[in-house]
């Protein structure tokens, strides 16, 4: 008689409890099974192309101590959960938790080794920390802004639509009053930033030129909830996210497109946690336009003779798809690259750390607002890597990436111009 197979007793070893709610039990499971392998600190070794660009974790690279790493945070989680430490035992706990861009670099590398969700663990830890210790003073403005204005930039709601006034003659649909197939979800940053206004204008123009049936919510648009989600204000996230999904479902759209990687990742992935389900597809604008490029509907008029390098925003890349253990860490990697290659005259050269093993811009996880020194340090590392490719410009399509990279570049000896993908497209159109 065949001997019975000796399998693990704990069913979670037989299958990762993906659908289990993220509570203390699940957090402990992830933390407990950290074997201190340190892949969370380094680019996956098969992808390491040089000694210089072998690190994946900005926090660990900057702060050096292992406490500032995925492994360190697992150790911290275990200590807190098992009652060996308390949140107020050490002021550095705040830095360990929050001087992290939540970029998912560690998360992605860890998924090559085991089934786990490190970023979700950090999110849980942040929310537990805030419950015990209160929100961070560094995030006060952000929190106040959300409460007062439903955006993160302390700007009155009415300002959210200001950019669209320049395009009145284009006749962009107001989905509060009209119907359209596609909602262009602009996001707080593109919606409110003067600096980034040309980009959103270009996006709208490109969509209009290609006869896309789209509209916007204007000053009725709420924050997607990404910032509160990342800094641990999960109730605030739930408030905004639930309101958004309900509203978007009411619009009867087939597709929501957004140019912001943060909004994209949040709506595409995090919104799946909500009890109310999306009734539309979620795409990054680059995914949408890639389809048009593939159908040869984009008619470039001029050459853009530039060598460019593409920065993969984390939240449309490795954090841009729901996790399925064992499946590829898919994300929006190829679409922007195809678009770049389609632009006449553009030559694409890659940085060493790209795709699911890209180095973060530094702007995520609350670092951009709360820990500028760290955010800009991270950006400078990325800019140095971009410069080393020999490219003329660095291209990306996330307002946080653009803003933080530009901020980080101030004062650097060798400048690297940052350009948005859609601005580049427009240059050729």
């Amino acid at each position, binding site marked *: 008689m065949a001997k019975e*197979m*000796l*399998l*693990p*007793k*704990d069913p*979670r*070893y*037989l*299958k*990762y409890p993906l659908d289990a709610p993220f509570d203390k039990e699940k957090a402990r499971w992830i933390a*407990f*099974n950290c*074997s*201190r*392998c*340190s*892949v969370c*600190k*380094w680019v*996956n*070794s*098969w*992808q*390491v*192309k*040089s*000694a210089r660009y*072998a690190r994946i974790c900005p926090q660990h690279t900057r702060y*050096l*101590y*292992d*406490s500032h790493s995925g*492994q360190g945070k*697992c*150790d*911290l989680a*275990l*200590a807190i959960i098992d009652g*060996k*430490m308390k949140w107020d*035992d*050490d002021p*550095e706990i705040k830095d*360990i938790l929050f001087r992290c861009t939540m970029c998912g670099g560690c998360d*992605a*590398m860890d*998924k*090559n*080794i*085991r*089934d786990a969700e490190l970023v979700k663990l950090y999110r849980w830890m942040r929310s537990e920390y805030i419950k015990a210790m209160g929100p961070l003073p560094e995030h006060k403005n952000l929190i106040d802004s959300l409460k007062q204005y439903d955006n993160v930039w302390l700007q009155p709601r009415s300002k959210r639509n200001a950019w669209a006034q320049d395009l009145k003659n284009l006749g962009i649909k107001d989905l509060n009053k009209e119907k359209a197939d596609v909602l262009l979800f602009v996001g707080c940053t593109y919606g409110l930033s003067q600096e980034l206004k040309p980009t959103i204008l270009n996006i709208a123009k490109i969509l209009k030129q290609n006869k896309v049936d789209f509209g916007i919510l204007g000053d009725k648009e709420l924050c997607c909830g990404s910032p509160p989600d990342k800094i641990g204000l999960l109730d605030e996230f739930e408030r905004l996210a639930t309101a958004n999904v309900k509203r978007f479902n009411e619009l009867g759209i087939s597709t929501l497109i957004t140019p912001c990687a943060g909004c994209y990742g949040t709506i595409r992935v995090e919104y799946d946690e909500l009890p109310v389900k999306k009734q539309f597809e979620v795409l990054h604008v680059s995914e949408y336009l890639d389809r048009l490029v593939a159908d040869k509907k984009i008619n470039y008029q001029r050459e853009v003779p530039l060598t460019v390098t593409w920065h993969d925003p984390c939240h449309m890349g490795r954090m841009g798809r729901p996790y399925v*253990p*064992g499946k*590829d*860490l*898919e994300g929006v990697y190829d679409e922007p690259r195809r678009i770049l290659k389609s632009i006449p005259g553009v030559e694409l050269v890659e940085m060493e750390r790209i*795709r*699911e*093993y890209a180095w973060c811009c530094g702007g995520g996880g609350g670092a951009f607002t709360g820990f500028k020194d760290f955010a800009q340090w991270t950006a400078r590392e990325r800019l140095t890597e971009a410069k080393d490719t020999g490219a003329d410009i660095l291209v990306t399509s996330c307002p946080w990436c653009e803003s933080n990279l530009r901020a980080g570049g101030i004062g650097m000896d060798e400048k690297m111009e940052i350009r948005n993908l859609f601005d580049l497209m427009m240059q050729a159109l």
Partner: protein
Amino acid sequence: MAKKNTQNNERHQQILQAFQAALGIENVKDNPATMNAYFGDWLPPKLLGMSMPPEFVVLPSSTLEVQAVIKICNRFKVPFIPVGSNQWSLTGSPNRQGTVIIDCKRMGKIHEIDEKNMYAVIEPLVTLAQLQAEAYKRGLYIGSPEASATASAIAGHCFQGMWGVGYRLGVAYRNILGIEWVLPNGEILRTGSFAQDAHNGFWGEGPGPDLRGMLRGYAGAMGGFGMVTKMAVKLHPYPGPKTWPVKGTIPNQISVLPEDRFKWYIIKYDSLEGAINFMYEIGKAEIAGVVQKWPTVYYIWWWANSNEQYWTEWQKRTFQDNVKNAVGVCLWGFTSAKQLEYEKRVLEDIIKETGGKPIKQEVFDLWVPRTANNWIRDTHGSRMMRPSGTFLALRLQTDTLKYSIDHVRQGYAWVEKFSPPILDCDGPDWIGGYDFGHFGFGETDFPVEKRADDIGDLMNKLLAMTKEDVQNGLENGVGPFLGGPYHQMAAPVFNYENLLKSIKKAIDPNFVSNPPHNIDPNA
């Protein structure tokens, strides 16, 4: 919290200030949240409550700073543990109060790569993956241990290091050239050509008797002989591409090396003897780059991309029914594509003569592109933890290939005896061929569920069996080479107790270098 009491303690403050004066305030920490990140590991100690947080973590940036730290440790008689990447924290978890972790995070330079003379000079944080990447660009190569290329290259040279390509290019102990090393007594020792010129590490021997002998032994000194701060390591000729060829996305990456220079075979036999005979013939024929007989469980450890996939496939017996007694061979065309063709013909002759059969093509196609090249680039060794949270390794031994057979069968018997809690692994006998078949290495690795009760109980039983083996005069043979508890146990039997204790006393008079490693001179 107890730590606050320690931190307020006068002695603690004195030590803290001494470290800060030597390294700068930001490079010394003693706070609980930092200490908490330095006592976890893969092995039982943390799980079984045998490890504890350190008292300090310090970040020196140079040999002189390491020397300063170690001198302070001697002055205050505090134990220190030098760590490299601290992957898995094999012996990097403090086991006594007041320990200082010397963390090399500020020592990550590759000082030099001499392409012509094929060596690199590195600091402790440099990983094998980093060094491999730089080597490939120059048409050179360095191996990766089963544990992973994310490990520190220096630390990897100090411990085991049975790289897949060690079959052809030599394993870790052969790969060390000059060393710069801070002894536990605070003296800076330079060996090999570094002894003559601290900037020239090209050669490893001497002068005269070779003090590299103190550095390792099969399992290294486990931090018990101070800290290596610089090492020159050999690089090797490499006919492969300048960047590692990878397609796909984590965790489903595949890697296919150029077919005109690399070729994999997996050939199976009806018995372990048959497989070993095949390995001998390959060595005698002076062909191949990698020759390994992996246990069934390795195939699925490296291959499975999720827990569900692992256990589903395991229960389907995909590997158990197909790779038992199979030998993985990778031919390398070092000289030319014609060499590869020649070696293929020779290997095929040997396969025919020895009665070997290739494994099923569908299993080969399933496994090889995703996994085989692990043994050249990186095994992602931590995947071994996936199926049950941890694994254990026992009965590591090295002698001839043939000797490995009996030895791993003993390992088999142990595994059978203790299953459960050892989980299903279908025979965990790993045998590697090295130095063109001049010697063989065997190891017994198996999955065990990461549960404190089970592991604690198992560890006690296995240690008891090892002790019994030793007391029985090694009737069943036992790997006498491991560090940790084995030195205390094995040293009297293998006749090196007084020697090792004397050396330890001579260079670590205050017994501060990761006690009780590598041996307790007072026990």
